[in-house]
Structures are given as C-alpha cells and as structure tokens.
C-alpha cells in the first residue's frame, strides 16, 4: 500500500488577530501550505477541515477557489485536527486520491470556554452549582496524580517555564516572553494547584498541511515527511474525564493510552525510537501525565526528567519545542495541526532557533480533549 507524505506546511500566527476572521486565518494558512509545496488549490483533489467557532471550514472555497473538490467538514472536539489528518491519511492510503489539503482554524472569544450542561447530556443543576468548569477537572486530575506518583509543585512550575522559554523563540507563538520560575510560582491561583501561568487560553489561528502519495512527494519538496500513523480513539468506561458527576470505582486507562499504543503498532516502532514530541499541554499537569500515558516514561519519572532537562530542546526527548498550547493558546480547530506543523519543521531541520540538535528522524504528536478523545500521529523522515 502507498505511503503518505506531508509536502506543504502553512500557518497563520496564533494569538489575537482582530483584523481577520477565523476563516481568513484558515485561508492564510492554506495558501502558505500550498506555496510551500509549490502547488495551488486547483491541484487539490480533496480537503478536510474543521473549526469550532470560526465558521464552516468548507466556506474556504469562497476564498481559495470553487474548484469542485470534495471538501468535508470535520468536527471532533480537541481531536478535530487529528481526525482531519486521519481522514486524509485514509483517503490517500486507500488509493482514492493522490493529493489533498488538511486545514484547521479558529477564533474564540476571550476568557474560558463557556459550556452548557445540556450540550453534554447533563442537567442544569450541574452548571448552576458551579461544577461545570474544565479548570476544576484539570486541577483535580493532577492533584490526584501528584499524590499517587510523587510529583512536586516544582515540576509543575518547570513545565510552564519551559513552555514560555520555547515560545520566546517561536515567531508564530502567541506568548513570546520567557517567564522566571518565581514569576510563575507566584502568579494568582486559579484552581489549586494550578495558577494563571499553568493554563493555556482560548486563542485564534490557522494551520494547514498538503499531503500526497509518498511516491509523488519529490515533485513538491526535497524534504517530505512521512505520516506513519494517524490514530484517534475515544474513552472507555472508567476513564477519568471532564464533566463527570461520578466516576466508576476502577479507573481505566485514558484514550491517550489506547491511541498511543495503536499508533506505535501501526508505525512498527516504540516510544524509545521517538526523537521529538508534541504532547497536549492545555495545562502543565496534562504535559506531565501525557509523558507517561504516551509511553515515554514511567509514572513518577517526570519529576527527575524535568529537573534534568530531558524534555528541553537540547534534551534527550524534546517536548513542545514551540511552547505548546501554553505559549500558543488553543484555537481548537487549528491546535492539533500546529503540533504536526512544528514536528515537520523539526524533521526537515527548518525549525530555526528552536531546532533540536539531535538530527531527529522520528516525531510524535498527541492531542487529548473533551469529551475524552485522543489523537496521535507518528511522523518520520
């Protein structure tokens, strides 16, 4: 069966862009990805796109050209980008299409997301009494994890410190100012043990990728990146998820664990083969837990990994080299594709000041989000 290559990379900077709609930021990213591949929208046989608050992705044809291509909107929560990539992967692997575009964009209002109980199959009392906040869930999950696996508060601070340091050398990041350990530690508390600098915020941005059959890739770039696996999984009974009025007695592995294992199996490699990774870091606890859930270390090892700088840009396994969600914010429709964009640059050797020095051959991306969904991609050169 044919392999799948990523041959074009495009991004619209993340953050706040009052002069552009979400859709327009998606178009900027799509044009950049097409230009990077030296091709145009007319050559695209399919497109998969998604956005939460930025409008219908397929409206992009009004900006890019009414070419008659198959354009499918994908909406799958935080795994929207992962699901679009999975659809493109399948479309090319199956032989149905040779080449196409994946695009995601978003534009969220300021402040925390504002979910309504009814949309989640819950009654009004749950929201009215003050339990419907994702920040509480993240705080309670890491609180229990710290208790069970001996993770200290210092490790939480170090993850945020690394994120803003990496963001400060990423031209397309939202937060480009490095913060000291003390500035982070003494920020206002949001939800114990997580404070203001330990959470990412909703934001804006767009990201796009051009994919094709691997045997055509050299026509478009001298540095194609192979998409070895693109997996999305949902939760099992017993996994500890957001907006759960009760949890089962036995805690089941999260969907991250099952997505990760399947992705490694498809790619025929293991965690020890990965040179650079992007792990969902909607808050610092998430990055810590995801290091273990994706198989990179044992539960509790994060404590000395962070202290020894293992996940720094010059470490043994650099994680979130562009500052992740903490420094880029989270435009939901675009966030997962940003991770892939960053890993492709790292594998091409074109990541500029944040280029990892270990001559990476294998990269890894992971998203996790409501309502208990996870997407993993493995990339290689």
């Amino acid at each position, binding site marked *: 069966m044919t392999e799948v290559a990523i041959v074009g990379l495009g991004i619209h900077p993340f953050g706040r862009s009052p002069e552009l709609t979400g859709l327009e930021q998606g178009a900027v990213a799509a044009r950049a990805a097409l230009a990077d591949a030296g091709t145009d929208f007319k050559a695209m046989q399919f497109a998969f796109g998604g956005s939460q608050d930025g409008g219908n992705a397929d409206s992009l044809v009004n900006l890019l050209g009414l070419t008659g291509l198959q354009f499918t909107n994908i909406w799958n929560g935080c795994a929207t980008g992962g699901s679009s990539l999975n659809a493109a992967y399948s479309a090319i692997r199956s032989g149905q299409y040779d080449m196409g575009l994946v695009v995601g964009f978003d534009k969220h209002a300021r*402040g*925390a997301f*504002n979910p*309504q*109980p009814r949309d989640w199959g819950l*009654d*009004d*009392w749950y*929201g*009215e*009494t*003050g*339990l*419907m*906040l994702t920040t*509480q869930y993240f*705080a*309670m*999950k890491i*609180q*229990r994890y710290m*208790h069970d696996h001996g993770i200290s508060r210092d490790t939480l601070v170090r993850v945020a410190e690394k994120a803003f340091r990496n963001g400060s050398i990423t031209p397309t990041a939202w937060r480009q100012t490095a913060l000291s350990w003390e500035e982070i530690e003494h920020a206002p*508390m*949001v*939800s*114990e*043990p997580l404070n203001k600098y330990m959470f990412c915020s909703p934001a804006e941005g767009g990201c796009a990728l051009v994919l094709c059959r691997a045997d055509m890739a050299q026509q478009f770039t001298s540095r194609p990146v192979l998409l070895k696996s693109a997996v999305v999984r949902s939760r099992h*009974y*017993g996994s500890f998820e957001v907006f*759960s*009025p*009760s*949890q*089962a*007695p*036995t805690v089941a592995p999260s969907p991250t664990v099952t997505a990760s294992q399947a992705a490694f199996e498809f790619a025929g490699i293991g965690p020890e083969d990965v040179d650079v990774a992007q792990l969902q870091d909607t808050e610092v606890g998430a990055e810590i837990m995801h290091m273990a859930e994706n198989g990179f270390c044992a539960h509790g090892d994060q404590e000395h990994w962070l202290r020894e700088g293992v996940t720094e840009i010059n470490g043994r396994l650099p994680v979130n080299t562009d500052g992740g969600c903490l420094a880029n914010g989270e435009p939901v429709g675009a966030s997962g594709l940003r991770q892939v964009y960053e890993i492709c640059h790292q594998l091409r050797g074109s990541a500029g000041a944040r280029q990892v020095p270990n001559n990476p051959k294998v990269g890894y991306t992971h998203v996790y989000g409501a309502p208990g969904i996870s997407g993993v991609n493995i990339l290689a050169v």
Partner: protein
Amino acid sequence: MADQLPLHPGLFSWPSKRPELLGSRCLECGEHAFPSQDSCRACGSEQTEIVGLGHSGTLWTWTVQSFMPKSPYLTDETPETFRPYGVGYVELPCGLKVESRLRENSPDSLAIGLDMELEIIPVRCNDEGTQLMTFQFCAAEVS
C-alpha cells in the same frame, strides 16, 4: 408553599437528619451511577434500580474554585459576596466517586483521604421566595 425545595429532583434523600445521595445500580452488572440512569454506562443494560449511595465517604481528589464562575453558574451571590468553594470527588462505600462542592475552601483544610459527610445547602431563592437546595460534602465530625 414549601420554604425549601431540592434544586433538582432525585439527587438526594431529604429532608432527613442523615441525608443520602441517590443513584442507580445496574441489575445486570452491578455498577453504580450518579445521578441515576435508566441505562448502564458500563454494560448498556436498561435494567437499573434506584438505590441509596450513603451519607459519607472519603475525599479522593480536590481543588478550590477561587473566582466566581460565569454562566451557567446561578446563585444569589454577587462578585462582592462570592466566597471560594471546594470541589472534590468523594469515594462512597460502593466505590463510586461522586463530584461535589465541598464546604472547606482552603488548601490547609483539604487532603486526599479525609473522611467526608453529606449536607444539604441552599443555592438560591426562586421567584416565589422558595429556597432551592443542593448537596455538598464537608469534613466529618470526629466521633
């Protein structure tokens, strides 16, 4: 007209000196759920019964909500009168962990493993002046 009514029916037994959470138990596989469900999220069976889940448990994890949430939060509080509240999961005798507000609202007074008990508290008054009630847990009195 009652002076006080549950904010939502079927969540707890009340009025009672020793209120109890109410949930469901699957007749096929025995798994519990809170709030009660007509079908089982473990096995998909549609055979469930309402059961009492008990008055007390132990704190499994916790946090503190330090700022007043925006909608859908709906109480009589204003930003000036808002007081931070604890939030936690309390592990009940059947093993189920239930998410709840906690009376304790400072990190010094909360710890995983703490013995907790149920109490019924007012949320807000409706247009007729009836107090609407919900449940929360608080640290159990040492006996």
